[in-house]
């Protein structure tokens, strides 16, 4: 039996400002990971990554990141991805101050 597939999200950096963004089910790039499409099928994940990479004039460096379903949508599994949803820990810069949370 193949190993169980860990759910994924497609993430990248926005081309113009480098901000971390996630691919939504309706093909937007959202600055909020909670709005991302949580992908539970490996073949679908590969397809979505290919589609993301083809949008070269919007983003750079697309990849699949492990995620899990939280109360408010997809959440990071690894601390690196958690930092990308917030910003640096030494200053109140980045998403933690600049992106309004989804209400």
């Amino acid at each position, binding site marked *: 039996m193949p190993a169980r597939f860990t759910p994924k999200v497609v993430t990248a*950096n926005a081309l*113009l400002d480098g901000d*971390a963004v996630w691919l939504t089910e309706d093909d937007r790039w959202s600055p909020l990971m909670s709005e991302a499409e949580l992908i539970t099928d490996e073949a679908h994940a590969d397809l979505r990554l290919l589609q993301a990479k083809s949008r070269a004039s919007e983003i750079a*460096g697309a990849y699949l990141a492990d995620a899990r379903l939280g109360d408010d949508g997809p959440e990071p599994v690894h601390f690196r991805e958690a930092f990308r949803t917030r910003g640096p820990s030494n200053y109140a810069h*980045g998403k933690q101050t600049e992106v309004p949370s989804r209400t």
Partner: protein
Amino acid sequence: MYVYNDFDETFVRTRVAQFRGQVERRIDGSLTEDEFKPLRLMNGLYLQLHAYMLRVAVPYGTLNPAQMRQLAMIADRWDKGYGHFTTRQNIQYNWPKLGDVPDMLEALADVGMHAIQTSGNTIRNVTADHFAGAAADEIEDPRAIAELLRQWSTDHPEFQFLPRKFKIAVTGAAADRAVTRAHDIGLVVVRNDAGEVGYQVIVGGGLGRTPMVGKVLRDFVSKADLLPYVEAIVSVYNLLGRRDNKYKARIKITLHENGIETIRDLVEERFNAIRAGFGGYDQTLLAEIETSFAPPAFVTKATDGYKAARLANPAFRSWTDTNLSPHKAAGYAIVSISIKKHGATPGDATSDQMRVMADLAETYGHGELRISHEQNVILPHVHQSDLPAVYAALRKADLATANIGLASDIIACPGMDYCALATARSIPIAQQIATRFDALKIEHDVGPLKIKISGCINACGHHHVGHIGILGIDRAGVENYQITLGGDGSETTTIGERAGPGFSADDIVPAIERLVTGYLSLRADPSETFLQTYRRLGIAPFKTLLYPSEDKADAA
């Protein structure tokens, strides 16, 4: 200081114009990221965790006040009002927008600066002793040769696609403040038996995942031979260095795999083949460059006021005890401005602080500033009589921390707060250690201690050569910090020894505290430094300090 000639000016402006076009083509979709990436890296532009990052070269760590003010202006106009000084004497901006970068590069060109070759498999910014031209123990100012190397290496057609990046450091003194033995090439100014000035050439040093101390390739290379000799080394490496494995591509591995004798023979052969081709033009150029680094017109003034201020103000006295170094000119001092206030991010300066430092350099420092690889800013030429005024201005700007060379003067890379390569955070660990030692009020009693933190195996934070080194790794999805002990980045360069299992983010600061307070009871007397105690006793008693419970378990 060196001022761009017409050639430099035209070259840098042309490069900015090219990059402007490349950015436009990337934004309009004509270039893919794969096509654009090597172009942006050639111009120092990285894509990090939260944003782009622009790395600007500060050649051999030297800045004039106008350049420092321009760095402040760039921080205000296109970034978040601060800059981060790095362990290779560069400055990094953490939040530029792609479309603004050509304007930032244009603003740099306005003051004779650039971001060329601050990335990629090229010869990087040539670094130098931050006390160059001022240090009492110096044979000769190494910056003229560093500038010659900068001109030679910039866009050198043979060396744009080396097997891997290539770093050169130079020092003019026997006391090594430029970590020359941890560079691909380290150059140390020496005198031969005839009293002539030349260079000891060290190759194959480096940190990263395979740390190695550089080896002497030649004890003495004359000034006239230096450029062809260095070119011969890079040329031999360019052909011999491995391109099949990124982790085995640095010259330290080439040297290790082929042996220093083979490399030496190949370099001599290449050197003899190319030497004549230089035709003396490099020496004409060097002579011109040397005039730009003539010492400033030092003045003679009474120093009574300085002595009186020291007696009257204990805080000023403490600052002069830690933050000054001996100057070659009578009545002068080298001032190290700590960019390491307890609890602040090591190496970060606000635009206001940059302007204050620029003003001080202009008013009291013969117009010179330096960036040190230890992430501080230096005023290399300050007359002692001006020190009370300099100190007062630094205090007002929150820049008067008296901790140079002490436990809280920590080198830390940006780590996972910014860097896409990092495996753990560095900055919060540095902040917590510095805050803890400030609360304990023991760092002046502890004395000279170098703590260096890297957030990944690439070792930008020089952890291998810290008296106490800390390496942040990802251990099963959790940040974990390994400690190395006994490292040394000076003329007696030593790679630190791994102490044992790593510590969690919560446990690392108490572990460092146990090491340092434990050292106070281990040292023979207050004059014996941490490193000297370590060398006398070895790692065992320090392991006992780090892992006390295991010791008890063994005894039970």
